[in-house]
């Protein structure tokens, strides 16, 4: 069974801190995604990556960057955390096998104070 693991379930950081959110998948998936989930706003795509060292901006990339040095790992970086980045962050992955769904991690609830 596919497993997408996010390193932290809960994080509390201070304004201005640099924050790293880590995501690892164990199914050799080419595509990985970072979303944020906020009440009433659904899921919004921050960044995605379709291959190692490749990345594409999603709908709300401002204030974020990503890193994909290895196929199984996709990191989301908040260069200088702000209170409006308090949110639930979801990582997902998918391969190229037809009809396979997007697999999600359990999420990281980040609070920026």
């Amino acid at each position, binding site marked *: 069974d596919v497993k997408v693991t996010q390193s932290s379930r809960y994080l509390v950081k201070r304004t201005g801190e640099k924050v790293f959110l880590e995501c690892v998948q164990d199914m050799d998936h080419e595509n990985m995604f970072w979303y944020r989930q906020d009440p009433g706003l659904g899921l919004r795509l921050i960044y995605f990556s379709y291959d190692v060292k490749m990345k594409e901006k999603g709908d709300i990339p401002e204030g974020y960057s990503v890193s994909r040095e290895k196929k199984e790992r996709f990191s989301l970086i908040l260069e200088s955390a702000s209170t409006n980045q308090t949110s639930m962050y979801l990582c997902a992955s998918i391969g190229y096998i037809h009809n396979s769904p*997007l697999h999600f991690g359990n999420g990281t609830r980040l609070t920026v104070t």
Partner: protein
Amino acid sequence: AQSVSQHNHHVILSEAASLELGCNYSYGGTVNLFWYVQYPGQHLQLLLKYFSGDPLVKGIKGFEAEFIKSKFSFNLRKPSVQWSDTAEYFCAVSADFYNAGNNRKLIWGLGTSLAVNP
């Protein structure tokens, strides 16, 4: 631009009631359609999906959805809900996901929160 609209933001039902959650999308080409569910405290998981073929799709836990191309709709149904169906439900659409090159993005609805009273 592609968009997905879920008509109901909050739904409250009693056990054994029937459920229908609406989902409409805007895109004229070939689409792949998904319903995901997020139970309290759990990760998002796939409920069902439509890629091609029979427009009536059956998923897990007794859910089904019907793709009506002429109405750009993919409504989710369950004949008799249970307390354990309390969750948030998301509809998502992709433009021919597996032939989209590097554009493997899903467009998500805002979600519907379902509460089932025992």
